[in-house]
């Protein structure tokens, strides 16, 4: 497995895809923090913590990063090159998933530095109670987990769908159309969807329609494992063109 992981990490470092997504992440975080502090005027602990909890917006970016990375293997036929060395496609997919998970953590860490560097000085000038160590810890932990798990889930979705355009469009439609509609129709059911769970893990508070942090992590892990099992089964029966 370590060979697969190292090979995938090398592949990640040697194209501009990761850099492109990281750049998109920086823009998103800047927008998120600046709008949240300058326009949103956060006063409460929850509001202030939400400014630094960048896992929620970033999770979508890293999820797409995983989807694009996994589907690129089919798009450019590099999946065959790997399978000629490691015939177990499930092993390749698991290795890829962990590599993207690590990359997601890395991207999340960089974005947290950006968010804290900009957000802390801005929040210091705001009235109301100050954030404590546990608030910072929760913002950091939730954001990192959301980024890591989001990227892993993205790889599983990408392996399952294989077609890059269909996978990206399908993911976006699910996150921004289907997920909110289902949540609106049935909040008790909708909070278990991976989009909602990612938001909860990302640290955007624990409203009545959100899972708590721990259960949200468990739900994301379950979604990731389920997607990988199904993707592995489908992929092992799929002919590689």
């Amino acid at each position, binding site marked *: 497995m370590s*060979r*697969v992981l*190292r*090979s995938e990490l*090398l*592949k990640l470092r*040697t*194209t*501009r*895809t990761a850099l492109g997504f990281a750049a998109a992440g920086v823009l998103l975080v800047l927008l998120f923090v600046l709008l949240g502090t300058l326009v949103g005027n956060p006063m409460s602990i929850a509001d202030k913590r939400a400014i630094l909890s960048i896992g929620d917006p970033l999770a979508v970016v890293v999820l797409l990063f995983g989807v694009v990375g996994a589907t*690129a293997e089919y798009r*450019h*036929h*590099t999946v*065959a*090159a*790997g*399978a*000629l*060395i*490691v*015939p*177990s496609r499930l092993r390749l997919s698991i290795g890829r998933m962990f590599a993207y998970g690590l990359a997601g953590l890395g991207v999340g860490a960089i974005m947290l530095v950006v968010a804290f560097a900009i957000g802390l000085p801005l929040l210091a000038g705001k009235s109301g109670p100050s954030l404590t160590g546990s608030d910072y810890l929760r913002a950091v932990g939730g954001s990192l987990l959301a980024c890591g798990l989001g990227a892993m889930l993205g790889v599983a979705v990408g392996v399952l769908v294989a077609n890059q355009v269909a996978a990206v469009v399908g993911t976006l439609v699910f996150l921004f159309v289907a997920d909110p509609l289902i949540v609106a129709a049935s909040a008790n059911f909708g909070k278990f969807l991976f989009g909602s769970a990612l938001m909860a893990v990302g640290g955007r508070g624990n409203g009545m329609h959100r899972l708590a942090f721990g259960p949200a992590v468990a739900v994301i892990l379950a979604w990731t494992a389920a997607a990988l099992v199904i993707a592995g089964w489908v992929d092992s*029966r799929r*002919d*590689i*063109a």
Partner: protein
Amino acid sequence: MPGDTSAIRVVGLSKRYGGVAAVDDLSFEVRAGAVTGFLGPNGAGKTTTLRILLGLARPTAGEAMIFGQPFAALTDPGRTVGASLEISGFHPGRSGRNHLRSLAVLAGLPASRVEDVLKLVEMTKAGNRRAGKYSMGMRQRLALAATLLGDPKVLVLDEPANGLDPQGIRWLRDFLRAMAADGRTVLISSHVLSEVAQTVDDVIVIHHGRLVDEGPVDRLSGPQRVSVRSPRVADLAAVITRAGAQVKRDQSDVLLVSGLDAAQVGDLAFSAGLPLHELATQTASLEEVFLELTTDEPGAPA
């Protein structure tokens, strides 16, 4: 062929896509240490067969084995088989060197091996360029470099001459000869016999997914005929026919004789007192035989 001399064995292989049979009950063997041409026109089922052989596609029926095992069961496939199936099997934004490095890491090979194979395919200087910027010939060379990373005993190459210019084809020919001289087993597919005719020891010819011929390349070169020119062609035809041979009049004063060699035809003409202006042995070219094997009769199902 005895089993222990086969590097590759395909038995009763079939692959159907809906109602279409891409490969239909195909069986053949590839001798270890030989260069074998896997020939057939476009759409004959060559690539599908190779993909099944390499575990990239599932057969509808039958089996394909390398050294007696399915590809997926090989202990170290990366060091046993080197295969090139797709010319675009690399990310266009990644350099050729990094593409090979990622495969070397996956196979547990040292980084120095990447430089070795880049040198072998004469791509050392171009290795840092992005693969998307490579010419067709450079992509083929990069694909060949990838096949050689694990120093494999078996090479499976799908249409490696596609898109190559004459210099590239010559380079490929020399390359394959060097691989064969190393004792490797090479299975090379092509839809153009002339590209591989000078390199291969054996040929396997398929058409519509079925085997139409296999064996040493020399055997494929067809029966010999004698071409004989004489000013008394009608008398000569009668003499030859009486000797039991078949005669076909090619031009007004030329006969094509089957069933006798040139010396026998000459002796017959001399005995009958008939003058000869030309006497030559003709062999049907490989290309002619190949076309004959793989060309549909008018009205035959495609």
